[in-house]
C-alpha cells in the first residue's frame, strides 16, 4: 500500500450548505500538508472526508492509489489525532495505545512490543500504567499521537492537535512533531490548523482554505513571499493590501507612482499591492509614502506604526524606536520594489 492522499473534486454539503466545494488537492507520499484557514473554511471537513466521517456529495477520496470514498472509517487504515485527544478514559495509557492493534487483530505476541515502541517514540514510556485523567494536556496529546502511530498508518490526520495546549507547550510539541516526521519519512500528514505559525513551521506545503474553497496552495516560503490572492496575503502574515492602478511601469497609489513589478497586469486596470509590514522601513527611500501616524503599538522588539496615507492605513513593523512617536507625527515610509507583489483583481475571491 502506498501513502499519499488525493482529493478529486470533493464536495460536501450539510443540509443545503456547501461546506467543501469541489476540492482538488494531492498530498504526496511522505509530505506534510497543512490545511490552513479560519473556522468554517472547510478544512476540518476535508480531513473528516479522508477519515470517513463525512460522506462527500460528489468527488472521490484516494488514500495511496486506493479509492476509499465508499469505505467505512475502520477500513481506511489512517491514524487520527484530534484537538480534544479523545483518549478512552476507561483504559490505561498502554491499553489506549494497544486499542487499534487489538481491534485490527494484530497477533497477541506483537502487541506489547509495538505499544512500547509507540510510547518510546513519543516519550511516554514511563506513563504506560496511568489513566488518561492522571496526565497533563501535553502528555495526553503525546499518548493520542502514540495511539495513532501504533497501527503504523500510511496517513496521519492531525486536526488542530495543538489548539488545546498553552503557548509554551505548543512550540515544544511543534518541534516534537517535526522530529516524529523525520523519523517516519514515509507517512503522509494532513495537518489542519488555523494557526499560521504551526503551518509555516511544520508543513512542506500549505493549502489555504476559505469559505469552503481552496484559495491557494504552495510551499510556506512561496505563499508568504508570493501570495496569489488577497486572502492568502492577509491570512498568512497579515500583509498590507493597497489598492493601486496599474501603469506602464509601476502602479499608482494615492497619487504616487510606485516602482513595483507589474508583469502580466494590463495597464489601466486596478489591482492590489501586497507588502509585508516588516519589509516597510521608516524614512525616505525607494517607493516612499508620506502620511501621519494614526496609531502606534509597542511590541517589545518592534514598533507597529499605522501610517495614514490618503484614506488608507499602511502598517509598518520597525525595530524598536528609542522614543515612541506621538500620534499625528508626519512620517515617510518606504519599501524595496522587489518586496512588493502585485495581485491582479479577480484572482481567488479578491
Amino acid at each position, binding site marked *: 500500500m502506498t501513502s499519499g492522499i488525493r482529493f478529486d473534486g470533493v464536495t460536501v454539503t450539510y443540509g443545503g450548505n456547501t461546506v467543501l466545494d469541489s476540492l482538488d488537492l494531492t498530498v504526496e507520499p511522505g509530505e506534510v500538508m497543512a490545511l490552513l484557514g479560519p473556522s468554517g473554511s472547510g478544512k476540518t471537513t476535508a480531513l473528516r472526508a479522508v477519515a*470517513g466521517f463525512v460522506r462527500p456529495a460528489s468527488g472521490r477520496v484516494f488514500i495511496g492509489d486506493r479509492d476509499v470514498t465508499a469505505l467505512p472509517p475502520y477500513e481506511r*487504515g*489512517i491514524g487520527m489525532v484530534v484537538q480534544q485527544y479523545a483518549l*478512552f478514559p*476507561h483504559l490505561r495509557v498502554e491499553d489506549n495505545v494497544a*486499542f487499534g492493534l487489538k481491534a485490527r487483530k494484530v497477533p497477541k505476541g506483537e502487541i506489547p512490543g509495538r505499544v512500547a515502541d509507540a510510547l518510546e517514540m513519543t516519550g511516554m514510556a514511563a506513563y504506560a500504567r496511568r489513566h488518561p485523567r492522571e496526565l497533563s494536556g501535553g502528555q495526553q496529546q503525546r499518548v493520542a499521537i502514540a495511539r495513532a502511530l501504533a497501527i503504523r498508518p500510511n496517513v496521519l*490526520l492531525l486536526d488542530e492537535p495543538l489548539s488545546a495546549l498553552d503557548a509554551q507547550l505548543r512550540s515544544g510539541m511543534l518541534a516534537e512533531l517535526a522530529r516524529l516526521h523525520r523519523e517516519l519519512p514515509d507517512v503522509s500528514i494532513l495537518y489542519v490548523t488555523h494557526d499560521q505559525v504551526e503551518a509555516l513551521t511544520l508543513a512542506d506545503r500549505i493549502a489555504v482554505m476559505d469559505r469552503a474553497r481552496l484559495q491557494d496552495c504552495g510551499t510556506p516560503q512561496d505563499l508568504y513571499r508570493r501570495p496569489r490572492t488577497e486572502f492568502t496575503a492577509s491570512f498568512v502574515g497579515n500583509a498590507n493590501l493597497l489598492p493601486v492602478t496599474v501603469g506602464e511601469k509601476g502602479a499608482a497609489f494615492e497619487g504616487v507612482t510606485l516602482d513595483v513589478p507589474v508583469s502580466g497586469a494590463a495597464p489601466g486596470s486596478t489591482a492590489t499591492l501586497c507588502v509585508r509590514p516588516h519589509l516597510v522601513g521608516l524614512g525616505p527611500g525607494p517607493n516612499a509614502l508620506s502620511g501621519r501616524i494614526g496609531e502606534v503599538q509597542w511590541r517589545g522588539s518592534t514598533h507597529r506604526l499605522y501610517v495614514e496615507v490618503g484614506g488608507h492605513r499602511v502598517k509598518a513593523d520597525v525595530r524598536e524606536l528609542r522614543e515612541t512617536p506621538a500620534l499625528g507625527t508626519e512620517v515617510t515610509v518606504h519599501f524595496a520594489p522587489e518586496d512588493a507583489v502585485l495581485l491582479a483583481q479577480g484572482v481567488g475571491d479578491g
Partner: protein
Amino acid sequence: MLVHSRTGRWTAWSLFAVLFVPLFALPLLVILAASFSTHWSGAFPSGPTTAHYTAAVRGESLQALTTSLVTAVTASVVALTVGTWAALAAAALGRKGKRVLDALFMLPVAVPSVVVGLAVLVAFSQPPVLLNGTRWIVIIAHTVLVTAFAHQSVSAALRRLDPMYEQAAASLGARPSYVLLRVKLPLLLPSLTAAAGLCFALSMGELSATVMLYPPDWTPLPVLVFTATDRGSLFTGSALAVVLMTATLLVLLAVSRIRTKASYR
C-alpha cells in the same frame, strides 16, 4: 447571593424551614416514629416497641420483601437490556427512525400505571398467552413500567456521549461491534447503573398496576403495606413501609458505589 441583608436571609431561611420541614421531613419522620409505636393518641406516639419489625422480617412480610426484591431485580434487568438496546438502536438510526423509536418507548410513561395493569390483565387473561394468576404477569407489568425510564436514561447518556470516542475508535480500525463492547458500553456504565437504580426503586414502590394483577402467592411489599393500612393496622403498615424504604435505599447506595468506581473522570 440574592439577599444581602441579614434579616432578609433569615426571613428566607425561616420561610424555607416552615414549608420544608412539615411537608417533606415530617412525613418520613412520622412513619419512622409510628413504626416503633403501638399507640398514637395525642400529640406523640406512645408504647415503644420493635414488635412490628420482628413481624416484618418473618412469614408473610418476609415473603413480600423477597417477592418485591425478585420482581424489582428481574424487571430492572430486563428493562435495562431492552431499554439500552432500543436506545442504542435508535441512536444509530436516522433522525426519523429515532423519533419513532423514542416515542414508542416513551409511551408507557404517559399511560397511567393502572391502565398498564388493566392492559396486561386483559391481554394475558386470554389465549394465546395465559399468565393471569402467575407471578409473571406482575413482573411483565413492572418491566413495561420501568423500561421507559431505562430507555430515557440511557438515551440521555448516549446524547451526552461525545462522538469523538467512537470516531477515534473507528479511525483506529475498530468495527462497530468492537466499538460498542470496548468503548461505548464501558463509557455508559455509570449511566447504566444509574438507570438500574432508578428502575429498581420504581419497581420496589409500584402499587397501581400491581393491585390490578397480583396473585395471592406473589404479593409485593407495597400491596402488603396497603392491605395492612386498609384494615387499620397503621403501625404494622409503617414498619413495612420503613422496611421498603430501607431496602430501596440500601440497593441505591450499593448502585451509587458501583457508579463511583465505574466513573472514570
